[in-house]
């Protein structure tokens, strides 16, 4: 008898705790998925997952942050595939969730960095025409993100990417880029997210670029 009561109680407790920590559990599960997403479709599905959470958890900035981030990643893949036609739509979606995240947590370096990434996407739709507006705005946001948290490794990562992909004639360079990826990696090694749900992406990317070296890719 006692056994039954015990097992019943235990299962109740486990179920209860399951219910309580559902938010964290689901978030962790979804955040883990970021690394496995490869295609724009993958990231769209992930964005939808985070969006569902964001709609319920209106007081937290992370679900909105990750929704926006998933859209940005989707956009970045589309950009690499040369699909500029729909980039504006994806960037506008991301913007919605950045605004939502920003309204719950102002002056967050991570959110300003996403804002930078959205402006960069919008610029890429038509760089010649849009550099003066979106290119400048992107630069401003990056500066703000860095000022808010100089130790944010993702700020260094995105900076390094910009340098890496800018041709030498325009002040970029693969060598300089790699140096900056190394700086970023250094910051990744010491960086501790405030909570387990805070952004912690980007380290593999830095390692990937360092691994590529300066010669292999364009």
């Amino acid at each position, binding site marked *: *008898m006692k056994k*039954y*009561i015990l*097992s*019943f109680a235990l*299962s*109740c407790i486990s*179920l209860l705790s399951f219910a309580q920590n*559902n938010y964290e559990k*689901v978030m962790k599960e979804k955040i883990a998925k970021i690394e496995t997403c490869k295609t724009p*479709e993958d990231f*769209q*599905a992930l964005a*939808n*997952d985070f*969006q*569902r*959470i964001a*709609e*319920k958890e209106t007081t937290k900035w992370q679900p909105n942050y990750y929704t926006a981030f998933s859209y940005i990643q989707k956009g970045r893949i589309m950009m690499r595939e*040369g*699909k*500029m*036609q729909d*980039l*504006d*739509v994806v960037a506008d*979606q991301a913007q919605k969730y950045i605004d939502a995240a920003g309204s719950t947590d102002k002056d967050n370096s991570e959110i300003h960095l996403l804002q930078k990434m959205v402006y960069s996407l919008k*610029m890429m*739709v*038509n*760089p*010649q*025409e*849009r*550099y*003066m*507006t979106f*290119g*400048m705005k992107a630069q401003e946001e990056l500066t703000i993100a860095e000022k808010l948290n100089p130790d944010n490794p993702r700020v260094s990562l995105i900076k390094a990417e910009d340098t890496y*992909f*800018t*041709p*030498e*004639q*325009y*002040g*970029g360079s693969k060598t300089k880029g790699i140096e900056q990826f190394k700086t970023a990696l250094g910051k990744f090694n010491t960086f501790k997210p405030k909570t387990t749900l805070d952004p912690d992406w980007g380290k593999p990317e830095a390692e990937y670029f360092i691994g590529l070296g300066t010669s292999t890719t364009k």
Partner: protein
Amino acid sequence: MKTKLLFLVSFLSFILSFSQIKITGKVTFKNKGVSEVNVTLKDTYDGATTDLEGNFSFETTEKGNRILTFVHPKYNEIEKTILIADQDVYMNAELKEQINEIDAVVVSAGSIEASDKKRATALLTPIDIYTTAGADGQISSALNYLPGVQKVGETEGLFVRGGTGTETKIFMDGSLINNYFSSSVPGIAGRDRFNTSLFKGNIFSSGGYSALYGQALSGALMLESVDLPDQSSYDFGVSPIFLNGGFQKLSENKDHSYGATLGYSNLGLMQDVFNFNTDFIDAPRGFNGDANFRIKTKSGGFFKYYGMFDNNKMGVKTESLEPGYDFTLVRLKGENTYHNLSFKQKFGKYLFNTSASYSYNQSDLNFSTETNDIESEKTQLLNDGNYINFKAVIDRKINKISALRGGFELNYANEKLNFGEVNKNYRDLISSAFVETDLGFSNHFSAKIGVRGENSSYLNKTNIAPRFALAYRLAKDWTTSFAYGLFFQNPESKYINSSAQLDFQQSQHFIFQVQRSTEGRSLRFEAFYKKYDELIKTQNIIPDADQNQQVQTAFNNNGNGFAKGLELFWRDKKTFENIDYWVSYSFLDSKRDFLNYPVSLKPNFAAEHTISLVAKRFIPEWKTGVNLSYTYAKGRPYYDIVTQNDKNIIRNEGRLKDYNSLNLSFNYLPNLGKKDAKAFTIFVVSISNVLGTKNIYGYNFSQNGSRSSAVVPPVNTFVFVGMFISFGVDKTQDAINNNL
């Protein structure tokens, strides 16, 4: 035992209540699966995203009556109630298309927009104008490389689809610009007075344009001036033919800005270097300046002011066709000023847009002859014009893609002409009212219906011009549109030299278009038919014995004509790496009986075939952009028409040789990428007509018709070298970011 069982049952039911129920289904639109739909069990984390076939599947522990939502940015959101018990649930959904601005088909028959506002597939961007070789950075010249525009070198203006240069009107922020081109002497085209960088975009319509615009039989060019600049800046430009400098200052809180520029140009230096066809006794030179301010009000209104002045001077000497004189001389002095103030503000669903402009234009032409190095008395032709334009438009959005707009426009012109004994004072007030509606029926089908009414105080007549256009999306990348319109234009005041009773001239446009646009590529096909009625007929007034300028006067509106044609435009940024090119072809068949034409003739400004090619390439290693353009136009007809015994007769006629021109330009950006550079420099070298082809624009005839001379460009091949420096803003970045 009983208690055991009870516990077990309650435990099982407890477990059951947490057990997972599978929810599956398919989301479709018009029986086709839709991917990327976000399916959510409302107020839970549970849900899924549909796959490529529109299928979705997820599990939930929720129970009871629940709501399933289906969300996709391109469709309307759907909610469905489901009952979750202990069985798997299957629920399908049929989506409804969401009508929105991005996906809605737009009427594009007859018009090409140079803008970055909406989509990445825009046919042209404002920068395309600067990087078109042979355009000299002038908007109107760049448009010569688009289908429907005729290459007419001797006269300024946009000659659209068999229309004369004065049949295309140019507007700035909705306001008519009178005298958009600088004053010119016969045979040498005037230049754009307005700096290309003033405008953030434009819509060029070669027919069937909106009821908001009038007084143009053939086409309209609507220029949109820039809003607040992104940053404060200073810039200078230096070249052997001009010198200019300017600044733009943006306030700290980015709510207002002001700026000004000054410039001086003189072709004199180049006269010694190049072998000019034209003998300039006074090299073309001019002085110009402009100023602007822009203010954003706290309530969301936006004021824009732009004002400019310029003067230009030149003198040309040509061998006389008349016996007894060695040379004929013509000297020009031009003065011009233009001021435009516009205001717009949103009030809820209403957008209020108003603009007022004033311009003054004076051209002072002096004709004389020279015999044995002795110049004769000068005959003066003095033109003075004052123009006021006012326009107000209210725009009301009806739903996302439909709108209703209406307003009125006043155009006042007061022109004085002094020519020998002739003193003419011409005054006209054209009052217009218009309404127009954009109707979006779905993302696939839209229509524009409008009507414009005009009254001219000079003619003492009123007209009503209905216009409509339809657009339909045939398939994902294919759209088609059709436009019809009636257009009226007053007779040009320069032909009003007697007291004849005149009426509006009119034209009807029928335009059919098919367009395909995909990532990096656009294809456009247009067919049009244009019918002219009530064109003015003129006779030559016996010209002054001392010079060759014919003066024509209109005596009735019995003229008519037609133009029909096919046009093709192909732009491709994708096929060749780093190369962006476009090709346009126009076929034009036109005949007119107007002005002094004795019968219906192929107009002397209409070439049957015109082909243009524009190609651009940026070479990052050299920090250099290379641009190329080529134009071929089949020889136009020419006529020598005179009035004899009150009848117009053709004395001489023929066909010009075909027109050919290959142009090249290079932009070199030495400071590219130097992040700490304080000044940013662009060097420009452009060579027009590289091959030195000797093109002929027409012929002048002596008064008795026995002698003639060719009208040719002032110079066959011209090389322009210039340097532009800017401080404060790295403008070189504009050019390079495409290549990142």
